[in-house]
């Protein structure tokens, strides 16, 4: 069962390399990702599942996959995102469609592996595997400055993951049974001092990936320069790798060191939230605006996790999913506008509501979710997260709370500039948007409101992971 999440994308990706016809390549990719989605839904309905096979006996490394609630919710997010991305962008994919889709599916393979791996070495393996296809995708098909920007992103992340590798070896040495399994890692005899070292090594990797405030400089450029499909993968799913890493590895394995660093990390995150929000207000480029807004949201999730309160972590787990859906919706809308008008500058947009009422309604829907208005999915998560931050420290909570207002400013500002006002010449060129993209957006918007009104399934799904973290 779990193996299918690794194998379906992998086999399809290999297959696609040999299919030169762009149209059939697209169909195969869509069918494959929909298949994964079905598997993910089935998985979400079942209990915890394991898969275990020997891998490198000398090192006691195992091919161990494990799906609990936290893994399931992210597998589900990945499974939803990929078909959505492929369908929505199928009109503007580059010439060598099969290679492009193949690399995308390799990335999906890596991401699934990251979320399911229960063995540290395997986790590291997939962690890198998710990165490499993205490097190639962005460098080949990205914007003008793509090579330098993607390279910065790659080296940044690679440095982080090498530090994590040292951390993995370091903990491995201290396990009693010389194993990479997460259960053995949890039992490793690390003194408080050693925990801090291991914590630091792991944390650098996750902090770069998320990214947290001083390490975020690669992100806006990378989002702006990558092809839109890749930007969607990065911001909807890939950044979740960092948060997932914290929830899965950092928090359970090094609890003492975790508690010792709560203050530093929360303060850095809150600085990041405010910093990113203020920059977002000043943006004119719609892609950069979404990028900075994403940094702010990720920072909030990180702060909530590090508040080390049950509600905060619960909120963050749900928000991992919701943020993915919302940001995906925003990117798709932004992409449609950019494809049809050829501009990303919001100065040159305006009057979308008159010209394209459906698209405008969808934009407003996702924008409201971005501000976490009640009834939308983000409200559930953000409410819990702010709650935990206020419990952690009222001043920190208040500072982070400012970001709600800031989010409202930049998001509504965007809606106002894009949707209302006079119809600009660029917007006037727009033609009807294609049906598949429209359907994807509507489905996503339905998810936004359904999980916003009725979030209980998400709570149920993550309950077991939450319990595990807090039983210890």
């Amino acid at each position, binding site marked *: 069962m779990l193996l299918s999440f690794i194998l379906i994308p992998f086999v399809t990706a290999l297959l696609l390399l040999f299919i030169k016809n762009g149209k059939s390549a697209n169909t195969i990719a869509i069918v494959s990702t929909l298949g994964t989605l079905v598997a993910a839904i089935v998985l979400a309905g079942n209990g915890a599942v394991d898969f275990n096979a020997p891998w*490198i*006996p*000398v*090192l006691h490394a195992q091919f161990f996959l494990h799906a609990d609630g936290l893994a399931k919710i992210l597998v589900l997010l990945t499974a939803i995102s990929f078909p959505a991305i492929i369908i929505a962008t199928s009109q503007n994919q580059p010439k060598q469609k099969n290679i492009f889709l193949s690399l995308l599916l390799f990335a999906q393979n890596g991401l699934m592996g990251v979320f399911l791996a229960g063995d540290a070495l395997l986790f*590291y*393996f997939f962690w*890198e*595997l998710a990165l*490499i296809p993205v490097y*190639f995708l962005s*460098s*080949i098909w990205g914007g003008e400055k*793509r*090579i330098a920007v993607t*390279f910065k992103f*790659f*080296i940044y992340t*690679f*440095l982080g993951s*090498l*530090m994590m*590798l*040292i951390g993995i*070896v*370091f903990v*491995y*040495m201290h396990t009693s049974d010389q194993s990479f399994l997460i259960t053995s890692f949890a039992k490793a005899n690390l003194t408080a001092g050693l925990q801090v*070292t291991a914590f630091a*090594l792991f944390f650098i990797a996750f902090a770069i990936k998320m990214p947290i405030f001083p390490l975020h400089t690669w992100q806006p450029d990378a989002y702006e320069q990558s092809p839109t499909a890749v930007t969607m993968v990065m911001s909807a799913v890939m950044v979740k790798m960092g948060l997932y890493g914290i929830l899965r590895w950092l928090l359970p394995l090094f609890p003492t060191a975790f508690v010792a660093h709560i203050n530093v990390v929360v303060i850095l995150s809150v600085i990041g939230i405010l910093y990113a929000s203020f920059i977002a207000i000043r943006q004119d480029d719609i892609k950069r605006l979404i990028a900075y807004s994403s940094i702010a949201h990720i920072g909030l999730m990180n702060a909530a996790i590090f508040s080390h309160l049950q509600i905060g972590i619960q909120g963050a787990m749900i928000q991992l999913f919701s943020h993915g859906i919302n940001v995906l919706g925003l990117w798709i809308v932004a992409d449609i506008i950019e494809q049809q008008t050829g501009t990303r500058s919001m100065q040159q947009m305006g009057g979308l509501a008159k010209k394209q009422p459906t698209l405008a309604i969808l934009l407003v829907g996702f924008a409201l979710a971005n501000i976490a208005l009640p009834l939308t999915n983000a409200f559930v998560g953000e409410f819990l997260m702010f709650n935990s931050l206020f419990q952690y420290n009222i001043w920190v909570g208040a500072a982070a709370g400012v970001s709600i207002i800031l989010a409202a400013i930049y998001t509504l500002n965007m809606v106002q500039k894009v949707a209302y006002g006079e119809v600009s010449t660029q917007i006037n060129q727009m033609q009807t948007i294609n049906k598949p993209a429209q359907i994807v957006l509507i489905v996503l918007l339905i998810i936004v409101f359904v999980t916003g009104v009725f979030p209980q399934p998400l709570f149920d799904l993550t309950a077991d992971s939450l319990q595990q973290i807090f039983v210890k």
Partner: protein
Amino acid sequence: MNAIIVSAFLGVVMMFASWSIKGENKQKNIALFGLIFLILANLAQLNGWFVAEVDTNNMLSFTRFGLYTNTLFYCLTLIYIWINGEEISKIGNHAADFYALFFFILCGASILTSFNNLLMLFIGIEILSIPLYILTGSDKKSLFSNEAAIKYFLMGSFSTGILLLGITFIYGATGSFNLIPPDPSVLNEQFMFSAGLILIFAAMNFKVSAAPFHFWTPDVYDGAPTVFTSFMATIAKSAGFIAFINIYLVQYKPFEKTWGIILPLVIISTLMVGNVTAVFQRSVKRMLTYSSIAQAGFMLFALYGTSSFANEGILLYIVVYSLASVGIFAVLVKMKENSFEAFHGLAKTHPLLAFLTTVFLCSLAGIPITGGFFAKYYMINAVLIAGAGIWLVVVAMIFASISVYYYFKLIQAMYFIPGTPAIGELDKSYTYKLAVLAILILVLGVFPNLLFNYLYF
């Protein structure tokens, strides 16, 4: 003993073959058959089927590790000649001479994997080095090649002098050339012994091109014909590492406090010189020579080893690094010039070749699912288990991420920058041979233990 005798004999055979057998292809095939015979002879000793008995007074001792390493060297040479045979015959007039030199080098390498006596170390290193000087200067009409050979010869001789001085000091302190660590109470001259150890350490650093004894490397590797650079930077250099480990890890480990202080300095300076200088190179060949210095820094980590990770790790590192380097030099040989610009647009015109080059580069950079990842992994593990301090590993990893910069510059040139690559004629079969290398690297990248299954029985 089998391997030493057979390889020396084959060297002589190849010398005769150069005038008695015409046709370069035939000569290459004889060399390949000879290598297979050499491998079989070595396996015969490894499995105890047939062992040539020669009384060496315990100056040579054949361990399973040493014999297994021999096998790996021979197999790598086999692959190397199989791929590069044609290119070798393009240089000079007598290809068979070069094959003879390869066999002599292998003879030296076989001594280096089994010496138990400092004189044998000296003889092994000399048998290994002198053919290398000749190979460097083999392109007689090129001034660069001649200059490189002279430079290599002079500096190599100088380092041999240092090695001999060190050996003399140790002889003076212990009264024996044998490597068996002396009883500390017998050491009447502790200072002389330490000085000897450090002098040998310096000389060995020269042979494996570790900083600050690396200055010959860029010019020599750059000046030598590219096919031979490939051999020098991989198999010949690896033999030096095995010798290094044989002295310091196996025999003189108890005296670690004398040379152990210098080791981290050497490692860090090697990593720094190699990686930082490689970033600024305009020529791919020069970049690769500096990268080979940088890789030597990683291989030196094996000297920390107290665990099986060090022994296994150095073997894995040697194999993976050699495979990747042989591969990338084999691509470079086919290019008309050595600049990065020559690779522009290679992915468009030669997609498979570009992909294979990417695999080689990723392996050198240590990216997962290539063997290079596990090679680095074993080294990290060895150092951490030896308790050398995590800071050293962190510094090494920072340099490793710098290395990504220059390796990926070549990937960028191939994939992302349009242009027409300056590449010569290329057979389909040549690319497929390289694909075999890449497959080996990928297999070792997922199942590194395949290499060690045969090490213990």
